[in-house]
C-alpha cells in the first residue's frame, strides 16, 4: 500500500517536473529577449529539477542514491541563480536593453 502510494506520488512528481521543463523549454523558445528567457530557464532549473529529483528520490527510497540526488539538487539550486544572474548581468553590462514597458522608472 505504502509502496504504491510512494510509486504514484513519484510518478506524479516526475510528470509535474517534466511538465515544468516542457513549459520552460517553450518559454526559452518563445519569450522575446534574454532577460525574459532567463526566467524560463530558471523554471527548468528550479521547479523542473526539483520535481524530477523528488520523483527519483521517492523511487529509490532511503539510500545513498537519494543522498546523491539531493546533492545534485542542491548543486543545481546553487548554481542556477549564479549563471542566470551572471548572464543577465553581462548582458546589461554590455549594453543590452531589455524589452520593457517601464514608464518613468529610473534605472
Amino acid at each position, binding site marked *: 500500500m505504502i509502496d504504491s502510494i510512494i510509486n504514484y506520488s513519484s510518478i506524479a512528481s516526475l510528470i509535474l517536473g517534466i511538465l515544468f521543463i516542457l513549459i520552460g523549454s517553450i518559454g526559452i523558445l518563445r519569450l522575446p529577449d534574454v532577460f525574459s528567457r532567463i526566467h524560463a530557464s530558471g523554471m527548468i532549473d528550479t521547479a523542473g529539477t526539483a520535481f524530477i529529483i523528488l520523483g527519483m528520490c521517492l523511487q529509490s527510497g532511503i539510500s545513498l542514491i537519494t543522498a546523491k540526488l539531493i546533492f545534485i539538487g542542491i548543486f543545481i539550486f*546553487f*548554481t542556477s*541563480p*549564479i549563471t542566470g*544572474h*551572471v548572464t543577465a*548581468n553581462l548582458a546589461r553590462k554590455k549594453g543590452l536593453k531589455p524589452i520593457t514597458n517601464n514608464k518613468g522608472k529610473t534605472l
Partner: protein
Amino acid sequence: MNNLILKVCTKVLFTPIILFGLYVQFHGDFGPGGGFQAGVIVAAAFILYAMVFGVDKCKIIMPTKLNFFLLVLGAFLYGFVGIVGLILGEPYLSYDLLGSTKQSGQHIGILLVEFGVGLTVCNVMICLFYSFANFKFGSNKND
C-alpha cells in the same frame, strides 16, 4: 570577473568540488570514475578559482613549479609502480607481489596507479590553463 555573487559562490563551491574529485578518485574501483575523471574535476575546481579570483591568486595555492613537479610526479609514480613489480621479479606493471596476497597486491597497485593518473591529469589541466591564461599577446611577433 568582478561579480559579488560569483565570488561568494566560488568560495563555497571550491572545497566540495575538490572533495568530490577525490571521492571519484578513490571510488574508481567500485563505480564509474577513476584517476582521469578525478583529475579533471579537481582541476576544474582550480580553474574555476583561477577564473573568478585571477590566475595570480590561484598560483598561491598551486604555484607553477609545484604544479609542474606534481605533473611529472604523477606519471613517474605510475612508471615507478611498474618498475617495482619489475624489480620484484615480475613483468612490468604486474602488481601481484605488491601486497600480501595477489588480490590485495592488485588492489594496492590499481589504487596507486590511478592516483598517479589523477595527479598527472589534474596538474596537466591546471598547467594548460595557466599556460593559456598567462600567454601574452605582445608586440614581439617572431618568437
